[in-house]
């Protein structure tokens, strides 16, 4: 992991034991990839939360600028849908997130959870991001 990506973890507002993202592998405009870890086999809801946390590492420079959202904005999860694709007993996974769309500060992101290259869960999260000068 590069020093720059390592530094990004400091911006994750969720701390242990609910800070599931342990490593940032890719941090691009519309795609991120992270390593997430749990102390025991995660539930689908935990994997969905990991998807939401991983989405923090999408850059979304133009979308945030247009929506008056700070680069490192807090967000509130509004909705989730997700499903298991395959059983897994692992405690560590890679999570890929992709920007889907946004309307103003309301953002939708899809996520896929991988166990050694095999997709085991997928879903979509929606969150409202804080705007400059407006508390959530």
């Amino acid at each position, binding site marked *: 992991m590069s020093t720059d990506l390592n530094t990004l973890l400091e911006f994750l507002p*969720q701390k*242990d034991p609910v*800070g599931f993202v342990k490593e940032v592998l890719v941090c691009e405009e519309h795609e991120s990839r992270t390593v997430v870890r749990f102390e025991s086999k995660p*539930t*689908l*809801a*935990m994997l969905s939360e990991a998807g939401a946390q991983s989405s923090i590492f999408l850059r979304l420079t133009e979308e945030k600028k247009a929506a008056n959202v700070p680069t490192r904005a807090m967000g509130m999860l509004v*909705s*989730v849908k997700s499903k298991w694709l395959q059983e897994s007993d692992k405690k560590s996974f890679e999570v890929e997130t992709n920007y889907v769309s946004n309307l103003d500060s309301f953002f939708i992101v899809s996520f896929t959870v991988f166990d050694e290259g095999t997709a085991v869960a997928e879903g979509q999260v929606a969150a409202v991001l804080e705007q400059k000068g407006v508390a959530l």
Partner: protein
Amino acid sequence: MSQSYLSNGLYDLVSKDDNEVIIKLSDADHPIFKAHFEGMPLLPGFLQIDIIAEILEKEVEAITSAKFVQKVLPKEQLMYRISPTKSGVRVKLTNESEELCGDFKLKWH
């Protein structure tokens, strides 16, 4: 009912039947509230789902939809109302003021 490493000590079960479950959340000193978020303790959305699954000893296969509409704070008493749907269950979560906090459509077994 055994509690997970995340929910251990997070809530007390007040009452439970087939359609209705009432819990009382711990205070803000619980590690979950200290971690989510520092200085602004809120019950994470994923735990709103995992708590009811844990109490009813269910495993969630799919979250058809989960809407989080109200912040859930430490020490709140919460009521889950569970009703069957064509493809699973619908779970509505309300606080003591009867405000809707969460609305979940789940498939579980």
